[in-house]
């Protein structure tokens, strides 16, 4: 049984004015020990999907529909106490900006120990010992001293390591990572990716890794899900999706990636147009207005998921047309 099962997840923000369907009908599955990368441009609903897994979207201002099961538990049905036990213990999260995600007036040791004490009910000394072991594990130099440090006293990379230590402190089965390397320098970024991959193997973690960088997704993922306007438009095994993308949006993403070997003078292709206004989506395929393959039908008919390979699906009416493009994409 997969550890994460999301079926027809919809999250609508109802805060002000027109309701915003940030996530509209997402299906995802993640097996134990597997890493799924969620790719997509800004505003496509990646973070909202991730937060829905821990019910962290503001309850008063958003509505959540569909089923979300994590480790056999129906997340939407958890009571307050169960939810607290679930968060941090079954699933844990690391954030894009560790400097914002850590409390500035508590030491890192206190923040980790706090989580350990809440979940395991152990003494402060035991919790601190666990924090120390974790700091050693995520390779923070002079860990005893760093446990006494405040977040602002550390570099970005060290803070993210501390954040990872915090997330792993209660031995979760699922790690949710929301662009954890975006705010970091390229070299530090790679170190963090390597660390996450290592820890994932060691702890047998399932990981959902949100990123808008295909390079990062290739580095960490077993499978990839590409999101656009609150839906998963393409998903499949990482190599399959990278080598044989079948949704025009994925093709666009791959083409717009600057290759190291980009020939001099070659144009970097971008996807024309701007991301759609979620509060005012067209009736058909939301990508149709920007799609180079769009037909009149695309503007009126919403596509369902089409199987296009082993475990590979694309939500596109023109999967036949994209199949014809394949050699070009693979070479490009």
């Amino acid at each position, binding site marked *: 049984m997969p550890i994460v099962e999301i079926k027809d997840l919809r999250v609508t923000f109802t805060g002000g004015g027109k309701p915003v369907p940030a996530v509209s009908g997402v299906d995802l599955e993640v097996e134990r020990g597997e890493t799924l990368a969620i790719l997509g441009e800004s505003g496509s609903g990646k973070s909202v999907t991730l937060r829905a897994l821990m019910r962290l979207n503001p309850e008063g201002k958003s509505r959540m529909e569909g089923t979300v099961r994590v480790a056999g538990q129906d997340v939407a049905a958890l009571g307050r106490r169960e939810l607290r036990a679930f968060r941090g213990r079954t699933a844990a999260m690391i954030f894009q900006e560790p400097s914002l995600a850590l409390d*500035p007036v508590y030491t890192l040791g206190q923040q980790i120990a706090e989580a350990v004490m809440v979940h395991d009910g152990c003494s402060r000394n035991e919790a601190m010992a666990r924090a120390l072991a974790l700091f050693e594990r995520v390779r923070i130099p002079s860990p005893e001293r760093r446990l006494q440090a405040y977040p602002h006293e550390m570099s970005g990379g060290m803070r993210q390591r501390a954040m990872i230590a915090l997330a792993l402190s209660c031995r979760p089965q699922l790690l949710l990572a929301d662009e954890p390397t975006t705010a970091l320098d390229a070299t530090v970024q790679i170190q963090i990716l390597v660390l996450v991959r290592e820890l994932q193997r060691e702890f047998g973690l399932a990981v959902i890794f949100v990123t808008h960088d295909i390079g990062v997704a290739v580095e960490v993922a077993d499978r990839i899900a590409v999101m656009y306007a609150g839906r998963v438009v393409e998903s499949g095994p990482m190599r399959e999706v990278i080598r044989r993308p079948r949704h025009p949006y994925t093709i666009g993403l791959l083409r717009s990636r600057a290759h190291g070997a980009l020939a001099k003078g070659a144009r970097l292709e971008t996807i024309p147009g701007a991301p759609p206004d979620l509060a005012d989506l067209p009736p058909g395929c939301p990508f149709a207005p920007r799609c180079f393959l769009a037909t009149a039908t695309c503007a009126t008919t919403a596509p369902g998921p089409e199987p296009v390979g082993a475990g590979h699906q694309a939500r596109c009416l023109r999967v036949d047309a994209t199949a014809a493009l394949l050699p070009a994409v693979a070479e490009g």
Partner: protein
Amino acid sequence: MLSYVLRRLIYMIPIVVGVSLVCFVLVHLAPGDPLVSVLPPDASEALKAQMMATYGFDRPYWHQFGLWVGRALQGDLGTSIATSRPVASEVLRAVSNTLLLAAVATAIGFAFGCLFGFVAGYFHDSWIDKAASALAVVGVSVPHYWLGMVLVIVFSVELNLLPPTGAGPDGSGDWAWNWAHMRHLILPAVTMSVIPMGIIARTVRALVADILGQEFVGALRAKGLGDRGVFRHVVKNAAPTALAVMGLQLGYLLGGSILIETVFSWPGTGFLLNAAIFQRDLPLLQGTILVLALFFVFLNLAVDVLQTGLDPRIQRG
């Protein structure tokens, strides 16, 4: 931390010297003859000269200043012209009364200000927030001497529950911790607490709303903390600023209490200053101002040190 405090204390020496100079000069620049209120209008020149010599008003200003500072350092602030009692003891009693009133008022204001501010910030933009904020605005903008009079009319005149004036049943101005004295404290303290309450409520509301909007609160929930755990973090984040505002409010109340002390005839520094000014009691005026000014200097230091100690983000540079 200790060296930081020491350094701050050394920085204060020139401030203290400046303060005492200013307060000496100010009082001597003010027009009027200091002896006019104690001498009969028809006093002889000889008597006048003798009195001037007794109080030292005949010497050059720099000499007077030197004498005054020298004595002040030994705790002698001269003798009140009006009451012939040592200024130091008069000031001390007034200071302790004002301190008592201001401290109790600040404590009440802080407690209710935090409560209202917290609730308003927690339920940001709801009707609870609007009600609590409206209350805070009223607290800040209502003239407190007027509020004092209204409270006197209601609780002293109409209901006859609490005494309207003074600090104790015997009218001596000496405080004692018993109900007979504490009854006198209630009305002025409540009146005075309205100002810090409003300001602290607004501060805490803004702080709490800001803190709750920060990403780390979501991260705290993500690691499994409940409302109580999050509350602890919010309090610790808000505390340095809230306490600093409270300290400053205490400072304002210590200095700005002339109106309330006059309305309630509370024998504090405001009352004393008022009396000293109207009776042109120079030694008393100087001594009171000096003590108040020094008090502010130390209060600021205390607030800074407290805030630095509480907030790890402030560098002790």
